[in-house]
């Protein structure tokens, strides 16, 4: 294992990428690198978080992210508890703050929280004494996804700054897009978003991106193409007329991929809708697709985030109610 970088994260929580500086992002990515190596060894278990308690609090169902966080915590030696709140307390009328206060009384060291409402994780973080990691809040942010995307890009391209990254698909409902826009901008990449106008949020350009409604134009010169899932479950009303039409204009296939740089790489936060936003063959193309690598990097990045935030736990009085 490489030496653990001597970087200290100056925040108590990881609620989003917005507001983080390039040094902080780089620090987290560097630390993640060391965990990539640990995860590839036969003995993956470490002890950085021995004695610490990590609670994964998911108000919205998720298999990939919660598994990734669970594995990350366990590999660092933490006691990990998974709570799927969507199906329990809330239905009994408990509010988010009640839940937070209840859990706080159990003295966890880190809470990993996913919630269907934007801002909910921040609200919760204000009511607890431990560190909180945002594992996705509504359509706001999903910071660990952006960090794992950044790690994946850097490992494959050697850098992030100067690249042209094109984020395609349901930008309006995507917390992944927002976190990536903040991160890529902070790291000096050029960012484009491509979507039908119904799936582009208002004034998105003011977040520092170029917006395209023509995917063919948007893909020109791309180094990285990040495809987003069409989030039908978040949609009220009709945003696109049909899946068939959507795929025709906004689905990534080899014909459209040819418009990007010849060495352009493809990413997707998953789960994929094959044949909706991405052609199956493109998704599985081992020369172009980084999708599986993203999953691997996910565990490493989450280990780095847990490590970083938990390393501050020992501050006196920190976990007192």
């Amino acid at each position, binding site marked *: 294992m490489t030496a653990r970088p001597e970087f200290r994260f100056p925040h108590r929580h990881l609620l989003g990428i*917005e507001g983080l500086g390039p040094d902080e992002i780089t620090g987290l990515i560097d630390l993640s690198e060391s965990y990539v190596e640990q995860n590839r060894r036969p003995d993956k278990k470490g002890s950085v978080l021995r004695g610490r308690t990590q609670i994964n609090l998911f108000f919205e169902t998720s298999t990939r992210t919660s598994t990734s966080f669970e594995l990350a915590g366990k590999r660092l030696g933490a006691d990990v508890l998974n709570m799927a709140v969507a199906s329990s307390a809330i239905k009994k009328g408990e*509010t*988010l*703050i009640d839940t937070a206060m209840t859990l706080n009384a159990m003295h966890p060291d880190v809470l990993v929280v996913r*919630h269907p*409402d*934007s*801002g*909910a994780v*921040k*609200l919760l973080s204000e009511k607890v004494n431990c560190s909180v990691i945002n594992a996705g*809040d*509504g*359509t*706001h*942010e999903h910071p660990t996804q952006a960090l794992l995307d950044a790690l994946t890009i850097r490992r494959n391209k050697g850098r992030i700054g100067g690249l042209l990254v094109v984020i395609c698909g349901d930008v309006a409902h995507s*917390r992944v897009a*927002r976190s990536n826009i903040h991160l890529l901008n902070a790291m000096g990449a050029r960012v484009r978003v491509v979507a039908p106008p119904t799936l582009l*949020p*208002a*004034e*998105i350009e*003011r*977040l520092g991106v170029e917006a395209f409604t023509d995917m063919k134009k948007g893909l020109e010169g791309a180094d990285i193409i990040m495809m987003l899932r069409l989030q039908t479950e978040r949609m*009220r009303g009709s945003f696109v007329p049909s899946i068939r039409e959507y795929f025709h204009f906004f689905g990534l296939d080899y014909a459209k991929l040819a418009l990007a740089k010849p060495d352009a790489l493809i990413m997707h936060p998953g789960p994929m809708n094959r044949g909706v936003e991405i052609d199956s063959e493109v998704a599985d193309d081992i020369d172009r697709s980084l999708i599986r690598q993203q999953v691997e990097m996910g565990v490493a990045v989450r280990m780095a985030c847990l490590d970083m935030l938990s390393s501050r736990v020992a501050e006196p009085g920190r976990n007192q109610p």
Partner: protein
Amino acid sequence: MPRHAVQPGGGARTQPAVSRILAFANVRLIDPATKLDSMGELVVADGLIADFGQNILPQQPPSHMTVVDGGGQVLAPALVDMRVQLREPGEEHKENMESGGAAAVAGGIGTMVQLPNTSPIIDDVSLVQFIERRSRTIGLADIRVYGAATKSLSGNELTEMGLMSEAGAVGFTDGERTIANALVMRRALSYAKTFGQLIVQHAEEPSLGTEAGMNEGEIATRLGVPGIPAAAEVIMIERDLRLVELTGGRYHAAHVSTAAAIEAIRQAKRRGLDVSCDTAPPYFALNETAVGDYRTFAKLSPPLRSEWDRRAVVEGLADGTIDAIASDHAPHDQDSKRLPFAQAAAGIIGLETLLPLTLELVHNKHLGLGQALAKLTCNPALRLGLAKGRLGRGASADLVLIDPDRPHRIDVAGFKSKSKNSPFDGRPTEGMALATLVGGRVVHAASGAPTALRELAASR
């Protein structure tokens, strides 16, 4: 010193138990209805304004007259607040008519009109009568009520507008809900007109809005909160204006918040339509940036808008397009606000901040004092057909003594309202109500009020 002599700079020695006549001396009388603005005196007898003007007090006041030295402060008609939610019946833990009444008079409000969105909904005669009765029993601010425009606020069937009018309803509205169906709106305007009544609309095209949202734009996009476009307001108002043209009805757009809507109303007034509108202090005192980091106390309906819209609201007030300023008092308890932004209730309390925030417009030289007070007194009263909001001999002595320059910091902890949901907590302001009289009774006197008034308030 004679027993009732005026004491310079202070109150008078009084015997409240035997006083039947209350006189104000050394006050700046402002009656926006007649554009009166001059130093003078005012006499209250038997709950009515007996007289006002210059040099009307006898040299030697009779023993049954209490003379209060107003210290040169403004004496004006008590405020008329045309949009208030009081939560009684049904949600008295958030506010009831008594706590709301106390909050109102503390804010200088003598009359307020309650929305019908209580539980049960005020959509029949008995509930209108209930409000009237409770208001009389409580004896603080005069509480009037809008009847629901449609049964159960469902937007489908008209209520018994005629009978409710006879029972005292002062207009009809579906409260926080838009009367969205054009046919229902057409009929509401036509039918209410028969009784000379106003239809008050919360103008928002519902299919473009969402209860979970905030103003559409960069901040909403950044926060990942559903956006409500400014156009949702003007679309509904433009439609309604066509229906006003069709029916000749009396229409009032509540809490307008966008430049486009204000311009539409400006044009409609030029065309001679019977339309009016109000706004509320958050729409000229804040913009969407107040939402900041999901601050639910800045969640309103309509949402706080862009700075450009905020300036248009100020302009609309200055040029008279916006007739009135209402508190839009919407009390919510902690449990309704301490939630993720999308789930939190929309609305803020406003009774005790209405006057100081409106006076910001005066201190910032957007409005003259008389002009600002008109929007809080005679304009809403006139539009609602209430014999309030003006100084008149023989009129009910509903008065407010205002120190327009007194520096103050808004402190919701000291508010009379049961709910504390205000984004203005801690905001420094200038100007406040020193005392409020309703029907000649001193129902509120702040610590800076003349001693006599404080004694009278305490002896209520």
